[in-house]
């Protein structure tokens, strides 16, 4: 067209679409942080300053280590996506209240450097960073990682075991069910009045966070429902076969890190499948592995290992559950 047409105005030219949903990685991370608040408050209530100390140490060390690591690798410092904050909170949630701070920093280092940045940073890590951090600590410092200071004991700080630990030891010693899991116990477990890692004890608070994440579309219901459902069915069968040597399903769901794992760890976007079918398989796999470890494994708790093992097969699940393309021939 002629040159004299008004070209004083510059317009942006880009390929469509010219609009966006407004979603961003940062907002998703922010939602996850918000969803951890109820469980965080409960951890302060039950474990006091120790909970605050661990969360603060983990978050600060994760963010600093991420920034330093990115700088050392000559990449732009990407901490504004808040993913290191999420890793820090979730790592802290998976630690026992009495763990020394320096050990928490070691956990942060493994979570951020080894599990995340060495693979290329956010989006490229095959394994859940917080769980790698926890598992490295569990294997390296088994004593401190399985020492539970009962919060009720007050200043004396008696060390006792978690419910899962008590059960494991009892069954290993050939004893029968160590305590009656009645409605009063269920209520205690649901609120979180038990020993455990600082963020895993309160099922009620974790559920509140889970509902928020569902409403904000940060997680889909598939993994939590199929994970907990599989654990319920698996433990239910064992319990039906021999109630004297097995705990009921309600115990397996409320005890240990199952709810924390099912809502916050097994729903991590990066390390879990992208298809709905894949998420269902992932959830069922986590449930089966968790129960196998709890029942027959060396550790009383199997959530971390179960999720990490399923992380490893996520690319395979994605491949196997690729949806049939619209209009493609039925195979």
């Amino acid at each position: 067209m002629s040159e004299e047409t008004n070209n004083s105005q510059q317009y942006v030219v880009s390929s469509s679409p010219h609009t966006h949903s407004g979603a961003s990685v940062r907002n998703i991370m922010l939602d996850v942080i918000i969803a951890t608040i109820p469980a965080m408050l409960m951890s302060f209530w039950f474990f006091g300053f120790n909970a605050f100390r661990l969360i603060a140490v983990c978050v600060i060390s994760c963010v600093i280590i991420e920034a330093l690591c990115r700088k050392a690798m000559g990449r732009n410092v990407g901490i504004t996506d808040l993913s290191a904050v999420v890793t820090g909170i979730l790592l802290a949630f998976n630690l026992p209240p009495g763990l020394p701070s320096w050990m928490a920093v070691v956990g942060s280092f493994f979570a951020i450097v080894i599990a995340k940045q060495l693979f290329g940073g956010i989006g490229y890590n095959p394994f859940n960073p917080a769980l790698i951090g926890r598992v490295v600590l569990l294997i390296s410092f088994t004593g401190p990682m399985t020492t539970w200071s009962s919060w009720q004991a007050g200043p004396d700080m008696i060390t006792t075991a978690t419910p899962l630990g008590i059960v494991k030891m009892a069954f290993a010693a050939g004893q029968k069910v160590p305590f009656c899991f009645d409605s009063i116990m269920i209520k205690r477990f649901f609120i979180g009045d038990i020993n455990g890692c600082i963020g895993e004890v309160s099922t009620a608070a974790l559920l509140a966070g889970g509902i928020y994440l569902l409403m904000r579309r940060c997680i889909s219901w598939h993994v939590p429902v199929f994970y907990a459902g599989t654990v319920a069915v698996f433990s239910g069968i064992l319990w039906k076969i021999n109630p004297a040597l097995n705990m009921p399903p309600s115990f397996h769901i409320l005890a240990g890190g199952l709810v924390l794992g099912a809502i916050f760890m097994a729903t991590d976007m990066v390390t879990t499948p992208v298809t709905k079918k894949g998420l269902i398989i992932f959830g069922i796999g986590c449930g089966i592995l968790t129960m196998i470890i709890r029942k027959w494994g060396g550790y009383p708790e199997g959530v971390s290992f179960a999720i990490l093992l399923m992380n490893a097969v996520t690319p395979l699940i994605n491949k196997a559950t690729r949806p049939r393309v619209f209009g493609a021939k039925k195979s």
Partner: protein
Amino acid sequence: MKTYKAQYKIAGGVHPEYHKELTRDKGIEIMPLPPLLHVYMSQHLGAHAKPILKKGDKVLRGQLIGESTGFVSAAVHAPTSGTVKNIEETRTAAGTFTQTVEIEPDGQDQWTSSLTPISNWESTDSKVLLNAIAAAGITGMGGAGFPSHVKLSPPSGKPIDTIIINGAECEPFLTADYRLMLEHAAEIWEGARIISKILGAKNIRIAIEDNKPEAISAMEKAIGTADDSVHIVILPTEYPHGAEKQQIFAITGRQVPSGGLPMDVGVVVQNVGTALAIRDAVVNGHPLTERVTTVTGLPLAQPKNVMARIGTPYSDLIKFCGGINGVAAKIISGGPMMGLAQSSLDATITKTTSGILVLPAKAVTFYEAMPCISCGRCVEACPVNLMPCDLSQMLEAEDYEAARDCNVMDCVECGCCAYECPAHRPLVQYMRQGKARVSAKILEEKAKQAGKEKK
């Protein structure tokens, strides 16, 4: 006649902000003739038309100025009476170059009588009707611009039992089809019957999204007491229910095979505007010389639905709509999901221009793409069941073989994936690029194969 909700649920889909309130209650306004019209010889899918006039020639409205040059091509007509000022190559809104006939209107707007009106089309042979449609240069007016006479003459092995008149208008902002249904329901209905007669299709389906209840009742009124072969199918308000293959599935449950055409499942889809143009060509003997386009956007002083001549420059349309208040950051030909961004207001209205959208600076954001975080939202949003997250990474790595094996060629480029992506990855953009590269590769292989056979 029956009205009901679509029975089949399409995969994926997104719910962008619709913004239709800017123009939905604005009746169609006829725009006065601009001082100059620039009529492109390529307004349709297929071979460009060939200009048959020379500088200085007088033309009448509806006179043939560009000849169809192939099986898939369409004739182009003078949008008004006047003088040919120039014929030169210019760039269209789509960014391609084509011969352009510049016409200075004489203000008389006098029609040619080259096409004879067919008032008794019901008793006229389908071939005659098809010829009239071809001679009138009718193309799909929803977006792709596929020549209608080609669409309406499927090969004999492909019987058509259902026609769908597409009034979904799922693109945000656009209300041109909505206004047509409100103001010209009877003519659209007559157009639909002409189409069904030509194809011998026994079923007529009118597809409208459920955010347009007034259009639904207007069409119901126009159709009146037609028998049960006519259904108004109410689609959910969800993008991209206006996309041909998705719409066919939502209404009939049939899946157009990968790489195939609607006629492979016995269906032909025509936009409401196209049905109206077909009726105008047959009943009034009028070639396609004008269309309704939605000129809209927040910075625009008076957003409107405008009946404008083909060849009207965007700048004149925007002037007709009161100009732009403040700063426009982006000009889009079409809607925000699939429209084409313009570098200037020089482009002109074609048979496929459904809207001109002006976006303010605050609606134009620059994103830095992050690595994929595997959230799966693109997989959930894809109406074709692709995995854009994986495909984008294959294409980023230039692995075109893998992308081809993962059905990149089935992408309809609707943009749902990129709309949803929280990492702001240019997903659909990767797909477009990938499709072009894969097509080139397929052609290359074919050429190689042909070369081998010769030896």
